[in-house]
């Protein structure tokens, strides 16, 4: 099987500060994996390079066997990649439904239609409701997005990405700012979405219960380098990772 995503010797620095150094890994289709690391390890910067809002200084990124280094986010998204954001990124004044429907329309190349009423796009609307159902947000469909609770806004952010029917979905700290209860729910939800939508999924997360609970592969970043990569058991017992990040208590 060919990998969906290949990172090949990525380097990135801001001035004198190296944020990504010689990072290489491959992600297989259908894999659910986590990227962990201390704050400032370069996790989000790595996501930003994969999705095209930052250009790596060196190295290549291959998505579905095609080089995407240097493409814009818009072009990369069109090839089947979606992402959510660490700081929730939604369209606050639009209804919850509209937030997801616009990405469904975009996926169907109908987002630039200037004549038909948006409600008449049946397929996109149905799909948007399907996504909202999966996220448990359908009951809020008509409300403006800014009225949602923080946790629900995080989910809506994921919903916008899901509307694109991505093959590869990147989630940047999906549980940031959530209560412990919400985290539990979100953990199960991510697992379910991964199965339901046939996704290849990479997420950044600080909550180790979630990371070790659902990831098949865990990658550890430290100071921009890929410190370790492997199944959760292996990572949990990796001495380097323990020293650098996990500390003793996880064992």
């Amino acid at each position, binding site marked *: 099987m060919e990998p969906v995503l290949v990172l090949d010797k990525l380097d990135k620095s801001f001035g004198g500060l190296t944020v990504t150094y010689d990072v290489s890994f491959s992600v297989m289709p259908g894999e659910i994996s986590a990227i962990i690391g201390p704050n400032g390890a370069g996790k989000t910067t790595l996501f930003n390079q994969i999705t095209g809002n930052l250009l790596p200084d060196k190295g290549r990124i291959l998505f579905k066997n095609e080089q995407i280094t240097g493409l814009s986010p818009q072009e990369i998204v069109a090839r089947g990649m979606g992402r959510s954001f660490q700081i929730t990124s*939604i369209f606050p004044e*639009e209804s919850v439904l509209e937030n997801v429907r616009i990405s469904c329309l975009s996926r169907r190349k109908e987002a630039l239609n200037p004549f038909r009423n948006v409600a008449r796009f049946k397929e996109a609307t149905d799909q948007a409701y399907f996504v909202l159902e999966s996220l448990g947000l359908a009951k809020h469909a008509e409300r403006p997005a800014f009225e949602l609770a923080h946790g629900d806004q995080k989910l809506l952010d994921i919903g*916008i990405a899901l509307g694109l029917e991505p093959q590869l979905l990147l989630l940047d700290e999906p549980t940031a700012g959530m209560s412990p209860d919400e985290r539990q729910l979100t953990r199960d939800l991510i697992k379910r979405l991964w199965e339901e939508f046939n996704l290849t999924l990479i997420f950044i997360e600080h909550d180790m219960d979630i990371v070790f609970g659902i990831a098949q592969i865990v990658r550890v970043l430290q100071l921009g380098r890929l410190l370790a990569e492997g199944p959760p058991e292996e990572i949990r017992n990796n001495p380097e990772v323990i020293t650098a990040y996990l500390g003793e208590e996880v064992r």
Partner: protein
Amino acid sequence: MEIRNNYKEIVFWAILFVIFGSLPIIGSSSYHLMLASHILLWGLFAVAFNMLWGVTGMLSFGQALYFGLGGYGVGLMVRHVGSDWFVPGIGLGLIAAAILSFAIGLLIIRVSGVFFTVLTLAFGQLVWQITFRWYEFTGGDDGIQGIIPPGILSNKLFYYYATLLIVIASIWLLRRISLSPLGVLLRCVRQNPNRVSFIGQSVRYSQLRIYIVSSVFSALAGGLMAGVDNSIHTDMLYWTTSGEVILMSVLGGIGQFFGPFIGTAVFIVIQEFVGAKTEYWPLIIGLIMMTMVLLLPRGLVGEFEALKTRLQSRMVADRG
């Protein structure tokens, strides 16, 4: 058109059809017809402008450029070729506006925020300056007088109804855009441009699209205006024209599709009736604008909406 269960929508179209449609029948002077035509055409101009600002978040301070271009398309054709060229002149203005807004748009959508605003102002003033100086061709500060539409269009009543129909059709088209996927996308561009790229759409080209659409409808309003006033003047291109359309939109409410039209009507009525009493009418407009911006920032239509929502929720609360 899809008539949704939306009183605002119905009220607005009723105003357009009934009030403006019956105005000549209930026996109004040609002065009233001219006033009504001004409201219609400035209203179209303001609604088109608001597709840029209120919807997409692009504050253009240079839409006078296209309004004037429409007027001068007609004026120059009539002056240099003949009055039979009145209607082709409107078409020419529209084409010129489309081409120019495409070219200027490509340049200025690269910047956003206040830089965009300043650039639109600069291009607007550039064209005004050229028109002002090029006396032999444009008539300079004298403008162009005696623009009489040919044939049946020279009949004031006929011209009024033609204007009404074109304005209704144009606003209806713009309304369709605002309710379409493109309309949603444009609102998304205003609210969160960064996310728009991550749903696979181009922020810049969405902005360019609506900049062209808005400019063409501004030119249409300007072209028809030449036939209402039977003259055009460089003021049409001057920055104060761009400023007025902003004021009208703020007055009515930029968060509402129909707000700018209502704002225009109120603005022009104040201008006419206060202007008849005192030459200091801009003072009144200024005070009203200050009040609006400080106390009622959502504009007339927007504040009315908010008031309604508050009353409804209070009624629900009382009942509960």
